[in-house]
């Protein structure tokens, strides 16, 4: 019943998931920019105004989600390196 004796690196998979989600956020931004809901005015971190075009909203999605989840990922890395007694490696 062994699927894969040693398994894959968790770090690799988590990083790939991160990249996939950030790219997906960009795609979703592009879609939202294309459909142009009413009063769409993306402001990066509430400060930097971006154009309400597909590209502008895509950048908004990429940067916002990239930084937000990136901060969470950095925290995961920090905590894992210092406080994880049960680390496998």
């Amino acid at each position, binding site marked *: 019943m062994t699927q894969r004796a040693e398994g894959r690196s968790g770090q690799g998979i988590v990083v790939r998931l991160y990249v996939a989600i950030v790219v997906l956020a960009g795609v979703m931004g592009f879609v939202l920019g294309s459909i142009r809901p009413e009063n769409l005015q993306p402001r990066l971190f509430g400060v930097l105004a971006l154009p309400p075009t597909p590209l502008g909203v895509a950048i908004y999605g990429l940067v916002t989600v990239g930084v937000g989840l990136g901060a969470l990922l950095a925290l995961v890395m920090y905590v894992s390196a210092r406080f994880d007694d*049960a680390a496998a490696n």
Partner: protein
Amino acid sequence: MVAGDIVLTGLMAVLLVGIAALLTRIENWRSYTPLAGGGTATGETVVHREKPAGIIRWLTTVDHKDIGLLYGLYAIIAFAVGGIMAFLIRVQLVTPAGAILSNNAYNSILTSHGITMLFLFGTPIIAAFANYFIPLLIGADDMAFPRINAIAFWVLPPAALLIWAGFFLAPVTDNMIEPARTAWTMYTPLSVEQTNPGVDLMLLGLHLSGVGATMGAINFIATIFTERDGDVDWANLDIFSWTMLTQSALILFAFPLLGSALVMLLMDRNLQTTFFAVEGGGPLLWQHLFWFFGHPEVYILVLPPMGLVSLILPKFSGRKLFGFKFVVYSTLAIGVLSFGVWAHHMFSTGMDPRLRASFMAVSLAIAIPSAVKTFNWITTMWNGRLRLTTPMLFCIGFVSNFIIGGVTGVFLAAVPVDLILHDTYYVVGHFHYIVMGAIGFAAFAGIYYWFPVFTGRMYQRTLGKAHFWLSMVGTNLTFFAMLALGYLGMPRRYATYQFDGAIAPLVQVTTFHQLATVGAVILLVGQLIFVWNIVQSWLEGPKVEDGDPWNLERDGMLDREFEWFDEQLEADEHERDPSLLADGGQDEQTDS
């Protein structure tokens, strides 16, 4: 006429004699109970080595594992019914004028879809896992009250029949009794003013399902508190049992309130009381009562799936759950906070702005324990070696979808955003990411993970993975399209749609509806594969001969349910010692 009556009476007598004869054939139904205390009341130990055969076994069983399987079967049937309803809804919305259903039929199906999925699939599928596995995980002989356990299950089939009664009765009563069209929230005054008796039947069915859930919750609390094996204490109680304990407490506080509110609604409808009338308590009273139950209900449905993921995800990461204690604390925190957020469903009702602000604050606060859990799952994976089995894929899918469902929910918790997006498809997309993308996925993870235990066989891995990927793609396509529809201003619950071009071009709205329907088709194909896989593998799959089918012992992560499973397999080898088959606990082996 008189002759007809006599014939009928005769038939009735034959039927009763037949039932009596049947009952005498199963005279042992009382005593095969695998209860530690079952035989001690009379001072003698009665051990019955076989369960009754055939259908009688399932109708009379009080074995927690059998009841777990009954719950599972019930939930899967309800999932199929609710899923077909969802599919009809999606097909209807392919064209702006509605493709297949009349407006009334659409409203009926919309109402039943919600109630079916939440009350007849969501709660029972959790009870299925909990019934089968909690006694095994905590080393109990059975549930604390096995007969109450059986009653709690057996009130559910009549509950489902009552809830769906309108669909069956409309054709035979010449539409005198029709399915309810109140939406699952049953808002007054609409639900009071619909004179259709189908609404009363649905309310009674809901009430009955609530009674069952409450009995089950009492049983789980008593079991986890009093039936643990000697070496299972609060410090090493597994995470799934912790979430079930919290969930059961929530049920205990939430469901009786739903029951009371339902009775009040029934009285308003039938006895001319004015609980929810303008001259009485007012229509908003219903919303307060309903959501005081309704929001904890969300956590009643999501906490045990979180427990399943917290239990399964570490197994395939090759390491223990990171920050176990904090996952337990966050479960308890969510349980407490869940009772302080109900009015965020009512921000647009014109309630006092100061109240709105306080409910907004608590709603935002609930993101913290949720984020703690997500953080712990990701950290568990970070330093692990992952084996991407089907249950693990569903766990990772759960985490991804939960993040999307959670983040979209945080925005809805903010009053200004909510006022814009309230009652649009954004809300529908948000909560479906949670109920399908997260709760549904965790249920699938549990089914695949424990499949060897409850069937003794292994599922087909390729089909399992196909099920995952189709579900993942289908879920994200359908529910992202709904989020986009919400941004475009598409309101919920409508059977048809027309748009002022100044708000959004109709063609764009139609396109997103069609995308959502394509996603629903993908989901449907995935679920057909799932059912095929489960049924075929159960009947013909390769038999599991190793008590550790997932190789968990290597990482020191073999839980008690798999140890029990191993004992079963060994018992099978040694000419089936039936005392082992009847029971999950250790005591029984020494007793018999």
